[in-house]
């Protein structure tokens, strides 16, 4: 998993660590949340807001829909393995923010592990290795086991770097 040398593939979009979260902004005036961040002018047409707080978005949400990429996407996508290995993608609804946010699905999980409405949690995993050999990371959505969903508590043990995902990664 993400070690000391791993850095996010994009600056300022998500936090790392045990409880990673997406970073958005919230309009101080009207409360609209933006991801990716909006820092200049509020896009709510009825709001003149120009000041924003940085906010961590909910780490858990429900699947709005999902798919996968059976063929290697074209550049600027950088494949992590050769030969290419498919990965899944999910759009996830975050209730508190009223947002649906895209993300890849965590290593070791595919479309068969997902259904519309199912709970998922944010993790951070390697996306690709850059020209300097450093690991670049990205946020991903990891399916939560059936009923454990939505309790909101006791999820620390299932944070980034679950044994399953790490094991699979090591085998590549």
């Amino acid at each position: 998993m993400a070690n000391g040398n791993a850095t996010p593939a994009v600056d300022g979009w998500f936090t790392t660590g045990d409880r990673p979260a997406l970073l958005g902004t919230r309009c101080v005036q009207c409360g609209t949340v933006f991801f990716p961040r909006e820092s200049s002018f509020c896009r709510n047409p009825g709001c003149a807001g120009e000041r924003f707080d940085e906010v961590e978005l909910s780490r858990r949400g429900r699947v709005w829909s999902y798919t996968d990429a059976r063929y290697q996407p074209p550049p600027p996508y950088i494949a992590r393995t050769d030969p290419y290995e498919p990965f899944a993608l999910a759009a996830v609804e975050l209730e508190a923010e009223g947002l649906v946010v895209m993300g890849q699905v965590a290593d070791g999980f595919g479309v068969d592990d997902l259904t519309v409405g199912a709970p998922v949690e944010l993790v951070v995993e390697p996306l690709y290795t850059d020209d300097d050999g450093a690991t670049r990371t990205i946020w991903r959505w990891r399916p939560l086991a059936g009923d454990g969903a939505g309790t909101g508590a006791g999820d620390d043990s299932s944070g980034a770097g679950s044994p399953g995902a790490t094991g699979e990664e090591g085998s590549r």
Partner: protein
Amino acid sequence: MSNDVALVGVGMHPWGKWGRPFQSYGVHAARAALADAGLDWSDVQLVVGGETVRNGYAGYVAGATFAQALGWNGARVATAYAACATGAQALDTARARILAGMCDVALVVGADTTPKGFLAPNAGERYDDPDWLRFRLLGMTNPAYFALYARRRMDLYGATAADFARVKVKNARHGLANPYARYRKEVALDEVMASPVVADPLHLLDICATSDGGAAVVLTSSEFARSRGLPALRLRAVATVAPTFPNTVIEMPNFATDSTAAVAPADLTFRDSIAHAAYEEAGLGPEDVSLAEVYDLSTALELDWYENIGLCKPGEAEQLVRAGDTTVGGRVPVNPSGGLACFGEAVPAQALAQVCEVAWQLRGVAEGRQVEGAQAGITANQGLFGHGSSVIVSV
């Protein structure tokens, strides 16, 4: 007062992978449309080109490029770009100048030469461009977005892979007799479902290809058509609406929807609002249209459009395609041209190609795919970055 203008000529260059400059398709289509209208190039006072972003400077100034290729005749030029909705924007520009009394005869042209495979973003590192970032950070191709919508139909409405395949089978049959279609071959249900999965649940044959092609439309003021005795159709509506905040359906190339934290979503989704605006402008409703040409970037997306243009309620589209309601001969045929399934997409030409097909249907000359007694037709599509496109033409 009526906002109608006269649609007097349409023309196309066959879709395919011809590998020639886009200008050549555009000029071919333009000459065909002028001949169809019975007008001369010297009659044209305005040329509006649909921009293509993959053909260098000539593509950025498409209006001028076509005017120069046709031989500068002193006409004004304009160029419009709205991704897949480009053709409708170009048409809207021409219509507006005619309605403003600034010209009588306008030629609208779109043409493209497109690359093989997935449409990929332009080269270079562009961390401020969502269209670049979605590939770098997510590996999110266009079919992946279509697949999200398809999967929702399955999980929410019980759609099946066979339902999606039915759309392809229908459109392939429609396109058989269309001389402008690139793919003119029957496709069996099993063939669609046995083709490789590209983005679950969509198979290769559920997803449209990219093509070369060109389409053109000639518009005139109603008075001009009358004075010259031109047989004219009525261009009743060109809806180029943008979304209303908050847009709650995730769209290419975005990472997220708008937030509903402060403002509740409108009653109509963005895609619903596109056709709604067109109906309102035309003073017609879904019950008045004899046929529809909708943007079947994927088979499943065609089903979404049935609902978005009001042919049925949400969740009922599968019943329409199963019952043959949207097949030529059915209640309201959809994509009698064969749609993108038979054409493949030529971005700046496609929305105009939809209008060409509606025109041929309304004149009763769509040989081998004719919707009997067609009185009015609607087109619908949606371009990247919030571009609606819906055109209504009637006899």
